[in-house]
Structure formats: structure tokens, C-alpha cells
């Protein structure tokens, strides 16, 4: 018997897209598909599994939609929608992958706020339950339910199209899809607060999203932003088993057991990104940003030991990324790389002026503390450490900072072992073309 959960994971987005293509009613299609899965959970164990689970689910969901439409029509004192029923009985499960791309473009439309788009994409395309999305984004379930409801309402009221735009517009829309997936991935890899260092589930869902989109459409498969992002995600994710120790505490890049890295995944990512390297001038800003980050991750991933890391190369890549994005977070990372290549004093100089832009973050004082300690300025280092600990909301990171203060004297810096957190402001800075 087919495992219903597997069918859900693999088919949800495609089936929803199909139902939406037929009805154009997001509310009806989503509810009906959820009902159909519920019916399957009750019936399949008794009746035996159907030959084609997808076709079974679509048939049940369609029947629900027709019931609802008929009820609505009666409520509105209009003729029952017999014609709709007849027409829907005709159509069968199609293999047109474009339905799925339409659904992705709907959920990640630029008219939606990026966080709302990320949540709606997880819900509509991957079928992730609202409670799980809430957990992944560290908000309460009612908050997430309200956010999803607002996003759906905007989609319906504003008339966000269920359509694939012209090729030149499609490229920029796919860039938005990539940013939305990146936002979900970043929420998994750089949680601002909470007990986990890495929320592998969410990062995994974001990778699944990009894979699903790329395997379903030729334009998406070749879209440089999606390809660059795919490589970046796989490279970051390949270190997942080495990033935390058995007790759940954070393991910095230098200290990671490289035997735990997934080298098959690293190879796959390098293979993915190779065709893009050297084509920078033809890429959109979003695509360039993902490619540069993937290239940085690749330098780390291919260094045999931490000591062999090519910091000069990494610092140069960060300089390029900073010129492109103007992001203060990128500058912070560049300071770390430059400190590794040229010494802590040079790195500290690059931190000057960042306090205005990164005032509330614990990462700036944490990096400053490490560089001050290495420059032998112990007293200032301790002050910076206290500030970092005070500001840090993530339990494992906080523990790592405390440990660092205790083991003062053997300091080193975590050199960009995670993706660069993207906030809404910097996400919208990209011109999108």
C-alpha cells in the first residue's frame, strides 16, 4: 500500500496546482484536497490502496469542489452548476508540470511580502501543515494561520495571476521564487532564537522546493538564480551532521569533523554551479549573489583541513558580494575573512561604522570580541563578549559564547559557516532583473 505521507509529500503541490487550474478557486481547491487526503487516511486501510493514488485523490477532491460550488449556487439562488460538474468529470490527471510552476509563481508573487510568500509557498506547494510552518518560523500557530489567511486573501482579492508570464518577466519572477526559498532556508540555518542551532527540517523543505520547481520546468531548471541557490543550499546542508555535537551545541566550522560532511552532496553542488562561473556579467543581481555565496561555501567545502582554507580567495569573493549587495551582514563576514587572511587588526578596521546598521545584533560584538582577543586587547574583548551574550537569543549560540569567554586565550572565529541571513530590507534591495 502506498504510504499516504509519501504521497502527500510528493503529490500535494502538483495536485493542488491541477485543481487550481480547473477551478481558479484557491479556497475551494485547498480545502477539497485536504478533505481528499483525510478521506484517503480513512478509506485506504479498509478498501485497499487505489491503483493510482493521485487520480483517486483528485476525483474525491473534485467531487468536494462540485458539492461546495453547488451549495454556493443554491445559496445564491442561481442555477446549480451542472455544467461545471460535467466538464470536470471529463478531465483527468494531467502530467503538465506547468501547473506546478504556476502555483509556485502564485505563492511567491512579488506583490506578497517575502515572509508571507515563503510561508504560503511551503503551505501551497509543499503541503507543509500550518502548525509545522509556525514551528519552523518560530511564531505561534494562530499567528501563522492569520499570516497565511492574509496572504491567501491578498492573492485572491488583488488578482494575482495563476499564469506563467512572458520569458523576460519569468526570469525575474523565478528570481523572486529563489529569494522566497532562500528566506525559508535561512530561517532554517540561522534561527534568531530558540533551542536549535539548525532546523534541518526547514532547510530540507526549502531544498525540496527548489528541486521540485527545477525538475518541473525547463526555464526553472536553467534559471541561474535557482541553480546558484540550489548549489549554495546543498553546500551548506552538506555540513548538517557536523554542525552540532551530540549534546546539541554548536560546532564552529574550524572544529567540525570533516568526515561527517556529505562529500557526494558537495560534488553535486560543484557540478551544478560550474557552468555559471565566469558568466557573472550576464546574470541578474539575485543570481550573482547566490553564485558568489555558493563559491564562498565551495572554498570552505573543498579545503582538506581548516588550516588549508584559502582565506585570500574568500575575502575577495566577499568584497565582490559586498559591492553587489551593500549588505552590512556581508561586510561583517568579509571582516572575518580578512582577519583570517591579513590579521585581526585589518579585520577590526572593516567593522568600523557597522554599529549603526547592525546595532541590535549579537553577531557584531561577537566577531569584534574574537578579533580584539586575537589582537591581544583582552579587556575590550571581554566587554564586547558581554554585549554579545546579552543580545543573543539563541540558546546554543549563547552557550558557545559563554564557553568562549571561559576558555579565553584560545580564541578563534567562526568563519562564515552558515548562509547569510537575509532580512526583508536586503531581500527587496535586489533589483530583480
Amino acid at each position, binding site marked *: 500500500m502506498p504510504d499516504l505521507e509519501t504521497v502527500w509529500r510528493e503529490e500535494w503541490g502538483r495536485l493542488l496546482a491541477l485543481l487550481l487550474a480547473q477551478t481558479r478557486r484557491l479556497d475551494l481547491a485547498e480545502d477539497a484536497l485536504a478533505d481528499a487526503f483525510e478521506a484517503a487516511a480513512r478509506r485506504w486501510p479498509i478498501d485497499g490502496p487505489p491503483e493510482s493514488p493521485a487520480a483517486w485523490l483528485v476525483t474525491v477532491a473534485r467531487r468536494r469542489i462540485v458539492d461546495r460550488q453547488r451549495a454556493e449556487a443554491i445559496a445564491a439562488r442561481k442555477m446549480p452548476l451542472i455544467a461545471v460538474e460535467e466538464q470536470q468529470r471529463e478531465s483527468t490527471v494531467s502530467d503538465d508540470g506547468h501547473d506546478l510552476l504556476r502555483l509556485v509563481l502564485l505563492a511567491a508573487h512579488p506583490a506578497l511580502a517575502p515572509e508571507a510568500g515563503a510561508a504560503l509557498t511551503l503551505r501551497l506547494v509543499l503541503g507543509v501543515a500550518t502548525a509545522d510552518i509556525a514551528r519552523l518560523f518560530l511564531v505561534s500557530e494562530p499567528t501563522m494561520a492569520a499570516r497565511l489567511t492574509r496572504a491567501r486573501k491578498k492573492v485572491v*482579492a*488583488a*488578482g*494575482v*495571476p495563476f*499564469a506563467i*508570464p512572458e520569458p523576460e*518577466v519569468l526570469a525575474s519572477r523565478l528570481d523572486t521564487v529563489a529569494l522566497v526559498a532562500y528566506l525559508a532556508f535561512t530561517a532554517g540555518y540561522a534561527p534568531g532564537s530558540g533551542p536549535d542551532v539548525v532546523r534541518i527540517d526547514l532547510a530540507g523543505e526549502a531544498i525540496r522546493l527548489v528541486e521540485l520547481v527545477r525538475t518541473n520546468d525547463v526555464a526553472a531548471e536553467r534559471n541561474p538564480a535557482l541553480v546558484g541557490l540550489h548549489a549554495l543550499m546543498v553546500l551548506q546542508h552538506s555540513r548538517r551532521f557536523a554542525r552540532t555535537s551530540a549534546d546539541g551545541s554548536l560546532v564552529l566550522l574550524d572544529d567540525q569533523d570533516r568526515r561527517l560532511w556529505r562529500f557526494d552532496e558537495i560534488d553535486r553542488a560543484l557540478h551544478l554551479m560550474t557552468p555559471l562561473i565566469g558568466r557573472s556579467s550576464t546574470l541578474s543581481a539575485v543570481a550573482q549573489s547566490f553564485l558568489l555565496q555558493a563559491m564562498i561555501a565551495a572554498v570552505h567545502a573543498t579545503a582538506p583541513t581548516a588550516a588549508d582554507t584559502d582565506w585570500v580567495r574568500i575575502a575577495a569573493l566577499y568584497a565582490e558580494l559586498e559591492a553587489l549587495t551593500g549588505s552590512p551582514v556581508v561586510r561583517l563576514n568579509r571582516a572575518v575573512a580578512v582577519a583570517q587572511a591579513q590579521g585581526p587588526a585589518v579585520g577590526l578596521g572593516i567593522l568600523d561604522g557597522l554599529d549603526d546598521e547592525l546595532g541590535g545584533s549579537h553577531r557584531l560584538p561577537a566577531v569584534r570580541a574574537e578579533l580584539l582577543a586575537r589582537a591581544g586587547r583582552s579587556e575590550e574583548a571581554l566587554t564586547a563578549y558581554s554585549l554579545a551574550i546579552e543580545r543573543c537569543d539563541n540558546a546554543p549560540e549563547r552557550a558557545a559564547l559563554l564557553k568562549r569567554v571561559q576558555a579565553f586565550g584560545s580564541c578563534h572565529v567562526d568563519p562564515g559557516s552558515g548562509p547569510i541571513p537575509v532580512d526583508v530590507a536586503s531581500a527587496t534591495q535586489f533589483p530583480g532583473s
Partner: protein
Amino acid sequence: MTKYLVIIAHSPNGWTDASPEQRQRWHQNHIDFHRVVGEHLLAGEALAGVDTATTLRHGDAGWAMTDGPYAESSEVIGGFYLLEADHLDQVTTWCELLPDCYALEIRPCVTVDGLDG
């Protein structure tokens, strides 16, 4: 088809400070917009300056009339278009023809039951 109101906001001195060539280009933008949107364009007006505006606001003591626009903003509403389209992307595509000095707010119109002619 959904009706959309496109609200045009621009800097108050944008037109007066512009060169004649600039203004000519912006006029042409509007002409192109009209041509492309065609019969989907239901209405559109340019508005007189904000110094001619009157604001009505309802307070504790009933309606109060004040001089001037309600927006405390460096940009002002300069005009609007009312048009109908199948979806948002069609509207944004058309609006990209308008002068690039504008900020445009696009709002779908809703039908209020009982108010239809």
C-alpha cells in the same frame, strides 16, 4: 474581470521642475498607456494641486472640514485611472508605461451588495 484603481502619487514639484523635453516624454507615456489599455480603461482624471484640496474627517463632533490634503507625505496624489483587467500582472504591465517619476498604488475595487445600479 476585476476593476482596479491606479492611484498616482508623485513629488509635488516633479512637473513644475521638469524640463520641457521631460514633460513631453511623460505626456507621451500617458498617450501610450491610453492606447495600450484601450477599452479596459474606464476612467481617469488628473487632479488639481494639493493646495486646492479640502479634507473632510469625521470626529467626535461630527464632520469637520479642513484645508489641505490628508497625507503628511512628500508625495501627493496627482491623479488616478480606473481600469479593468483579468489579473494583477496585466495591470502592472500596463502601468509600467506610465512616467517613471510616479509611485503607483494599485487597489482592486470591491462590489458592495445593494449598491449596484
